[in-house]
């Protein structure tokens, strides 16, 4: 079976996800402007430790090999290490994403002692100015300090995870050098207009010229850099396909469990339209994965719509569902960052359309300066 045939098979869905993201909490010490899950405050309905362990039991039965834990900041959960150890004990490897604020020397040693564990430190600039503009003041130093602790503890190859924006795209070589310096692996992903990203995307997303820059960089460096397959829309730029499966895996090989147990098609679509069910429903996660109407629908052949007239559709597959949805574009049309320029026209046409607002906003209330004084 060729790669194309395999991709066709995968589009029909798998018996269990390959890439399952589980946001453990909406609580976060940071307020990144592009946060996919609009995190900040804990949700009181958050899954309890016992509920979380029951989900891990189910994932074990489904033979899910590994999961990606995130948030919010997952290490804020008091039972974080308990869940980590439980998961690994059940044969489910864990990769977790963190801003590093809670990795001190002692935690770094504890993490180093664990098997089947990957750590992904988020960093969006190779200098504090570039990074902190997106992730908040002091977050660059925090991340570097965590990386130092991991290096000193001898953790080995952790990951540095970068969301590529208009402002850090010129730093890709520097990111690679930084990762090499730490014996880490670089991971770069696409900025999505999801969560708080809906508000920042228009200012942050790479320009058309920069998209070419990302593609060329990936063609040169792609084999040694992880991307979570997130740049497949760039494939229309050249003859050489980027490494990876280059398909939208939402509801087919990918899904998201959010902190309160709701199951979404992917980490970039926290919206009722893409909610398949809840792990708290009768039948649990398996039922949602195997039977939900939404996932069944996503596994059916998708229409290319307006893109069917374009010769590049086979290469780019129409791009990212979430990127279209949160910019008000039809799902069966071009991606807002279509490299053939069809996205710009579509965005103009959609400018009078009501753009769906991300749901489940847990952002901290904005600080309004209070003036206390005599009347």
């Amino acid at each position, binding site marked *: *079976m060729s790669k194309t045939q395999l991709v066709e*098979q995968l589009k*029909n869905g798998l*018996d269990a996800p*390959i890439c399952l993201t589980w946001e453990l909490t909406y609580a976060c010490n940071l307020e990144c402007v592009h946060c996919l899950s609009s995190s900040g405050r804990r949700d009181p309905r958050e899954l309890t430790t016992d509920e979380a362990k029951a989900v891990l039991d189910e994932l074990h039965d489904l033979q899910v*090999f590994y999961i990606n834990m995130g948030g919010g900041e997952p290490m804020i959960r008091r039972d974080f290490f308990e869940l980590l150890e439980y998961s690994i004990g059940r*044969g489910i490897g864990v990769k977790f994403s963190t801003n590093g604020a809670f990795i001190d020397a002692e935690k770094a040693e504890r993490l180093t002692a664990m098997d089947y564990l990957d750590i992904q430190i988020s960093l969006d600039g190779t200098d504090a100015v570039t990074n902190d503009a997106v992730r908040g003041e002091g977050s660059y130093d925090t991340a570097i300090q965590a990386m130092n602790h991991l290096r000193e503890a001898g953790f080995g190859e952790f990951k540095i995870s970068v969301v590529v924006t208009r402002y850090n795209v010129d730093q890709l070589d520097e990111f690679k050098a930084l990762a090499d310096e730490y014996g880490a692996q670089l991971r770069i992903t696409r900025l999505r207009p999801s969560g708080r990203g809906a508000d920042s995307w228009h200012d942050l997303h790479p320009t058309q010229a920069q998209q070419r820059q990302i593609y060329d960089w990936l063609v040169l460096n792609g084999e040694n850099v992880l991307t979570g397959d997130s740049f497949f829309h760039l494939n229309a730029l050249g003859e050489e396909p980027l490494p990876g499966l280059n398909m939208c895996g939402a509801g087919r090989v990918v899904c998201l469990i959010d902190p309160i147990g709701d199951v979404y098609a992917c980490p970039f679509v926290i919206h009722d339209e893409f909610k398949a069910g809840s792990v708290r429903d009768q039948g649990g996660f398996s039922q949602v994965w195997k039977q939900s109407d939404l996932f069944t629908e996503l596994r059916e052949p998708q229409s290319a719509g307006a893109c069917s007239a374009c010769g590049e559709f086979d290469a780019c597959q129409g791009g990212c569902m979430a990127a279209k949805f949160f910019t008000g574009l039809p799902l069966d049309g071009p991606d807002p960052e279509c490299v053939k320029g069809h996205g710009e026209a579509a965005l103009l046409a959609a400018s009078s359309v009501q753009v769906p607002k991300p749901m489940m906003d847990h952002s901290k209330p904005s600080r309004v300066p209070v003036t206390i004084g005599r009347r």
Partner: protein
Amino acid sequence: MTDSLLEQRLMLHPQVALRPEPFGALAYHYGNRKLVFLKHPDVVRLVQALDGTGTTAEKLSECEIDAARWPSFERALANLHASEMLQ
């Protein structure tokens, strides 16, 4: 000693788990964290039969794989061997 996989007595690495899927199976190596697709049910049958007791050629016969298909099986096994799924 020979380099041909057909003459070797291979077995699935103890840290590899197979998960059945409609197209065949997924193989995951907990040690090196590689994920490999076994893209045909017959490849899955063969890999499951590899237990180090007989040569690959013997196992292919046991699994009743037509000799004309052996070269493609050898290629599939070479990939699995390269990713340390088989030892």
